[in-house]
């Protein structure tokens, strides 16, 4: 290198060479840009897929002979009311109306509390998971969700969500009956709801 420089300085007759420009381009900003775009596309593709919550509705035509009756003491009925309030009662014959909200301290506690009491009377069903072979316990408790006309969509999703969180497997979305609406208005009157009336209400 040094020799070459000397030669260039001293040599008059030396050929004038075009200065060779470096062909290197700084690619750092390009890489920056590329990674920024990668991040953008990665996030938009994975986040574009919405989450879903599968729902199975009861069939319209229920065969009364094959339908299994559930014991009153296993049932918790939730009635979703206006202003994010949940009214609930247990069983039917000596039902007492109470209300709560959708928070972790509210509805979840009510369900877990009922679940504990059901477990004492009816031991949890033990089933092995088909895939993993893991033992799982299913509560025999049933929850009936009945939204009133003042409930909003979010309330239903929240109620379904609580079922999942508290691991209640048997729950159903049903139409609310006039008797129950009356019960919300006048809790002291009690719920006079015969089996025939329940079947009729469920069919509506």
């Amino acid at each position: 290198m040094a020799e070459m420089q000397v030669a260039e300085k001293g040599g008059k007759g030396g050929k004038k060479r075009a200065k060779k420009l470096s062909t290197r381009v700084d690619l750092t900003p390009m890489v920056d840009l590329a990674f920024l775009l990668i991040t953008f596309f990665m996030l938009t593709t994975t986040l574009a897929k919405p989450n879903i919550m599968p729902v199975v509705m009861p069939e319209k035509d229920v065969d009364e002979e094959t339908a299994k009756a559930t014991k009153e003491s296993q049932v918790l009925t939730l009635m979703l009311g206006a202003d994010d309030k949940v009214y609930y009662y247990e069983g039917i014959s000596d039902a007492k109306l109470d209300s709560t909200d959708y928070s972790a301290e509210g509805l979840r506690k009510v369900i877990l509390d009922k679940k504990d009491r059901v477990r004492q009377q009816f031991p949890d069903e033990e089933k092995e998971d088909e895939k993993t072979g893991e033992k799982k316990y299913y509560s025999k408790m049933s929850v009936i969700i009945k939204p009133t006309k003042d409930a909003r969509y979010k309330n239903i999703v929240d109620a379904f969500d609580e079922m999942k969180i508290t691991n209640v497997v048997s729950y159903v979305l049903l139409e609310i009956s006039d008797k129950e609406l009356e019960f919300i208005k006048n809790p002291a009157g009690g719920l006079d709801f015969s089996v025939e009336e329940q079947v009729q209400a469920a069919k509506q």
Partner: protein
Amino acid sequence: MPKHKPKRSNPTIDMTAMCDVSFLLLTFFILTAKARPAESVIVDTPSSISQTKLPDAGTLTLLVSKEGKVFLDMVGQHTRKYLIDEMNNDYSLGLTDEEKLKFSIAGGFGVPRAGLKKWLDASPTERNEMDESGIPIDTVDVNKSELATWIHRARLAQFEMKKQGVVSDEYVIVLKADKDTPYPAVKRVINTLTDINVNKFNLITTMEGDPNKLNAIEGK
């Protein structure tokens, strides 16, 4: 003895390889990205702990707006073409071939059958300005309910396409509603579905932390 000078290395790194890799990845993500289809109406879905993702199979989306208007959207150009042909014949909608083609590539719609021709003739910007009243639902007679007919026919069309080998899956029914949609509006749609024996469907929700898992992480 001369002092030992540490050799100064050039701080620039050759970025060419990194550039190659990043652009390769970029190309991959651009090609796999799916354009988000235009929504008929913007809804704010409620959150849930459900982690299930929407399957890649064909979806039939029922959109219920805050006001309770119902919009219908389904994927699959071939299915839509078949569906609109059938609907046009059976309900004499009077659509031209051009309008049918428009339907097959359009997105969600929320107009009564009688107004479909006008809706298809409108340009996308005009459609946004049009007052879409939603698909009418007859809660008493399921045979008269336009929504029930559309869903039923769309499923049949998809089934036919599956038979022909154009598509691989039957429709997955998806219900998407705003969190403030009143329950009666949602109920009408759910009842329509159960009336035509669709007892399994999915609710679209946004993600929310699962309290059980959060507690496990916190060590409670």
